């Protein structure tokens, strides 16, 4: 009972952490481009403003998809804080991603349609990597349970360094950071306007944005699992991942989907993951 309450509290606090991290992201990005950048709380201002806009939706599926995406992200995070099953978490996360595609594909806007096709490409690229990382967890701990990770005495980073790099790939793709930001982007003036989020507006866009924050917290949480033995290690690992993510976002140009799916994801991401898994199997 206590763990359920704890996990619920975590899910409720997660948007605060996610919004703050996203504020740090925007400010760091601005500094990397030698600008001042917005205030740290800017993402929260944006969200409150969006909730205050008049609701406007092309059809009911759009609204439904926004709610399901947020619910799936919240539920995946709940499973994570409960120390639950990694496979279940993976499937719930996929439901959220699929409904984002459904929301984008149910409207006639060509920007949204192309965004949806590209979002499917992103899923093809990051889901195999994510599942291989979870297989790595299972080979180290003997089960898919997150709680079992905390029974180990040594940090997982020592056993699966390459899988951590592969997770970094999946992280970049899942968060739609450059060079993989072709289905939607937080930067203005990209060729698809906002891709999958083009047709959302006002409160529904705010729901999608909060879902995105929850995803950010979840994925950084997964990174933290690689150094579960010390709190300082966790914080260091999360901070390093986030900073690298922002740096890469700012110094790379957008790739085409062929590059991402065939060369980057399959060769580099999956290659790293498979080599690490083989090593775990032999050792």
């Amino acid at each position: 009972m206590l763990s359920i309450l704890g996990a619920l509290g975590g899910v409720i606090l997660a948007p605060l952490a996610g919004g703050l991290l996203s504020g740090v992201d925007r400010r760091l990005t601005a500094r990397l481009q030698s600008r001042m950048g917005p205030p740290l709380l800017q993402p929260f201002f944006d969200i409150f403003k969006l909730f205050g806009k008049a609701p406007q939706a092309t059809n009911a599926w759009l609204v439904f998809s926004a709610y399901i995406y947020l619910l799936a992200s919240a539920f995946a995070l709940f499973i994570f804080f409960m120390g639950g099953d990694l496979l279940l978490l993976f499937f719930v996360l996929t439901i959220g991603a699929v409904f984002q595609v459904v929301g984008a594909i149910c409207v006639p806007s060509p920007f949204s349609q192309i965004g949806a096709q590209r979002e499917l490409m992103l899923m093809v690229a990051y889901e195999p990597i994510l599942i291989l990382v979870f297989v790595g967890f299972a080979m180290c701990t003997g089960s898919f349970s997150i709680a079992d990770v905390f029974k180990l005495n040594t940090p997982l980073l020592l056993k699966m360094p390459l899988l951590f790099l592969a997770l970094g790939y999946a992280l970049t793709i899942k968060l739609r950071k450059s060079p993989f930001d072709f289905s939607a982007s937080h930067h203005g003036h990209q060729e698809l306007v906002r891709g999958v989020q083009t047709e959302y507006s006002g409160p529904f866009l705010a729901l999608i944005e909060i879902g995105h924050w929850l995803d950010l917290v979840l994925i950084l949480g997964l990174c933290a699992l690689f150094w579960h033995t010390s709190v300082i290690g966790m914080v260091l690992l999360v901070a390093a991942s986030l900073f690298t993510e922002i740096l890469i976002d700012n110094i790379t140009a957008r790739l085409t989907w062929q590059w991402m799916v065939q060369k980057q994801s399959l060769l580099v991401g999956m290659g790293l993951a498979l080599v690490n898994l083989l090593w775990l199997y032999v050792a």
Partner: protein
Amino acid sequence: MGFVENMIKKSRLKSPWIVHFDCGSCNGCDIEVLACLTPMYDVERFGVVNTGNPKHADVLLVTGTVNHRNRHVLKQIYEQMPEPKAVVSIGACNLSGGVFKDSYNILNGAHTVIPVDVFVPGCPPKPEAIIDGVVTALNALAAKMGLGPAPGAALMPGDEDAPKAAAVG
């Protein structure tokens, strides 16, 4: 609910997302609008984001000469923006038709098609003037929420009698 409503009112003034529509300008005003986003002026300090999507935007920046073809596009973009919203008309051509005023194919300014909150004169106006225009548009938004007086949107003398587009046909 008091806290949420207060936050919403406060946030509206702190996060003006912008959509920029060019009604066929010479690009002088457009370059100045985009200059506001560069590190030199960096309007993201005030939460301004150039969204390029009317459905996400709060403030519409219009430049260029409005004519009988693009006035429908302008109206459509305005109608796609969810309330509350503000319109800033930028540059001589967009205020009154500029050097093309009273040409057979030109409407004398965006205010003949959509309700405009702020006029920024100039050919082209400086980026500072455009930033000031957006800030004044925020005051107009605040006035619509009942916070403070509305800024006086002043047309150039002689432009008040420009006929509305609907009357021109």
